[in-house]
């Protein structure tokens, strides 16, 4: 049987599992992988980043924009600790990301060797699972299992720690045909009793309301949800993570969040039953005295101690599939009621656009770009939920760090998204403060010759901490850039820059 190096097994396994892109940065203990990389260059594309945190965000953005798993490769110690922010971001939002870290040779484990850190210990609380590979022969199985765990059930990041002696050791290539882990269930079947409970409550209700989260998002369920809302004529709201899911539905009433917009408050007030599908509702909004049906794949997010709540423990997409087959029911919601809600919704948005300059810019920018544009933004305090002013037509087009609220997430995620969505336009919108977190990655975008529009909102030019001049900064990276004032003519400049190929940066002074 042909023998492979551990480093070769790494690529052979990834290739067999259908991985085509990895993000990473070389370093001491993974050098063997980079040594053999040229012979796999045609099969697997490696994108050299400048910071491991950015690499993780890129893989995360790559995954969010497409649904494919994102892969990161980096060395031990400082590199691995740099990935933590990115891993945590993916963990909070249940994104399938695989992190491969180098590690000191197994005999030196735990000896405070050069660039050693306890990756397994450090990432224990921010990964779905993590594992240390001890023998070269186990590497393919460990990689296959990691991908399987990461990409099934409630998805999440998985870390695989690979000591140097595992990577330079030799072994035959043995990968199990199918993966089965005894103590892990990759799917949750819908219990008939729970579903019947839901159906009874649904039929009895007068004004039910659906709230969808990221768990309800899949290509198939997106169409089914639109169908379901049309069939029952009931309103739907989404969490920030599922923004864009209801884009095609006329029963879409926007976002639900902790500082609820007035419209979602009104709808909540009128409804007598809230059906939360794949959404971590209690953490988003306080719904005391409301009857709630909670559909979630993770039982941790189901609260069975509260009386009156109905829990349905299942994959949200399966639930939607089942609901799609149900018969038509009629409820007390009226079309003119919806019209009023809708008009209020639009007028409320318009009012805010008038008052908030950032909201205005978000909405103006969004109108300039074609429908299928991926918008990548940050979630900082002053930019809370500005995403609702964007014209997001698909849940995969809104890249934002929801649970972790990572500053500086948007820009590297946008770079990642260009690789998984080469046909779509990708835009990164961040404030100057957030952009500075990962601005070094501009060089990656330039090197990789991707098409990316970066918009930086510079609101601190007259401030005590003005930050750099982003236009000249971008020029030093060889990025075509311009600086405009937030005004009527801003649109023309953006339009002109949209036409250019490659990476462009537009700094907007507020």
């Amino acid at each position, binding site marked *: 049987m042909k023998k492979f190096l551990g480093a070769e097994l790494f690529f052979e396994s990834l290739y067999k599992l259908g991985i085509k892109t990895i993000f990473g940065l070389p370093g001491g203990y993974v050098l063997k992988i980079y040594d053999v990389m040229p012979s796999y260059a045609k099969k697997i594309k490696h994108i050299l980043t400048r910071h491991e945190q950015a690499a993780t965000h890129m893989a995360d953005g790559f995954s969010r924009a497409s649904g494919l798993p994102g892969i990161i490769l980096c060395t031990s110690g400082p590199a691995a600790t740099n990935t933590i922010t990115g891993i945590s971001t993916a963990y909070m939002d249940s994104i399938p990301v695989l992190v491969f870290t180098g590690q000191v040779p197994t005999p030196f484990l735990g000896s405070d060797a050069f660039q050693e850190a306890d990756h*397994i*210990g450090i990432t*224990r*609380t921010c990964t779905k*699972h993590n594992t*240390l590979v001890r023998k070269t022969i186990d590497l393919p199985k460990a990689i296959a299992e990691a991908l399987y765990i990461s990409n099934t059930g409630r998805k999440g990041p998985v870390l695989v720690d690979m000591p140097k002696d595992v990577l330079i050791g030799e072994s035959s290539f043995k990968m199990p045909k199918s993966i089965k882990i005894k*103590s892990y269930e990759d799917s949750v079947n819908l219990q008939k009793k729970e579903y019947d409970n839901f159906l009874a409550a649904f039929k009895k209700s007068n004004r039910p309301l659906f709230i969808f989260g990221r768990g309800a998002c899949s290509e198939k369920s997106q169409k089914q949800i639109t169908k379901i809302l049309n069939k029952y004529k009931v309103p739907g709201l989404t969490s920030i993570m599922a923004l864009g899911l209801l884009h095609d539905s006329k029963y879409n009433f926007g976002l639900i969040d902790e500082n609820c917009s007035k419209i979602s408050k009104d709808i909540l007030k009128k409804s007598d039953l809230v059906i939360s599908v794949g959404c971590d509702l209690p953490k988003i909004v306080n719904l005391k005295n409301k009857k709630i049906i909670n559909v979630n794949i993770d039982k941790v997010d189901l609260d069975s101690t509260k009386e009156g709540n109905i829990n349905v423990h299942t994959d949200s997409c399966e639930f939607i599939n089942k609901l799609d087959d149900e018969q038509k029911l009629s409820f007390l919601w009226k079309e003119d009621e919806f019209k009023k809600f809708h008009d209020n919704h639009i007028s409320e948005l318009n009012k805010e656009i008038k008052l908030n300059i950032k909201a205005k810019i978000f909405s103006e920018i969004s109108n300039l770009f074609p429908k299928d544009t991926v918008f990548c933004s940050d979630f900082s305090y002053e930019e809370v939920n500005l995403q609702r002013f964007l014209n997001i037509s698909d849940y995969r087009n809104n890249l934002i760090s929801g649970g972790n609220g990572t500053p500086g997430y948007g820009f590297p995620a946008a770079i990642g998204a260009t690789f998984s969505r080469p046909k779509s336009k990708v835009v990164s919108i961040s404030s100057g403060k957030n952009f500075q977190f990962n601005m070094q990655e501009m060089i990656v975008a330039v090197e990789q010759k991707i098409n990316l529009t970066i918009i930086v909102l510079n609101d601190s030019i007259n401030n005590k901490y003005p930050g750099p001049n982003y236009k000249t900064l971008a020029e030093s990276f060889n990025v075509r850039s311009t600086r405009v004032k937030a005004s009527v003519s801003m649109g023309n400049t953006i339009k002109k820059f949209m036409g250019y190929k490659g990476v462009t940066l537009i700094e907007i002074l507020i």
Partner: protein
Amino acid sequence: MRHVISILVDNEPGVLARIAGLFTARGFNIESLCVAETEKQSLSRLTLVTSGDDWIIEQIIKRFENMINVIKVDDFKESQSLQRELLIARVNPTSKTRSEVLRVADIFRANVVDVGSKSYALEITGSKDKLEAFVEILRPLGLKEINRTGLISLKREKN
């Protein structure tokens, strides 16, 4: 409320740290913890005693169940399970209390497992209450040190 949680896990490094980590993350104290191999070498059973708000214990149990290496979690009620603990005590009696120690041991059905010129070592199994009573009685008789295994439990057969 006091909970006895019995967890069946893969016999692998790092599993205990993962489980203990969930407690530290919530600032919970583990009253006792006992881990050992089961009838299958690949599996370990972990018995853990803790007390806390029911809602939080339920959350912790759900998170245990979500862990990849955890196979089964049981939250035992006292009546549903057998619960035992083992205790070893060293007693340095005076010449006056020497026979009294042996009498107490006899009453509690404890065994003498080591005898020296100055001390006895006693071994006793039983419920938490029984062991505590035993310790309290030995205390004035020259109790030197004790060590306990922590609670272990097994589900009773259903009637």
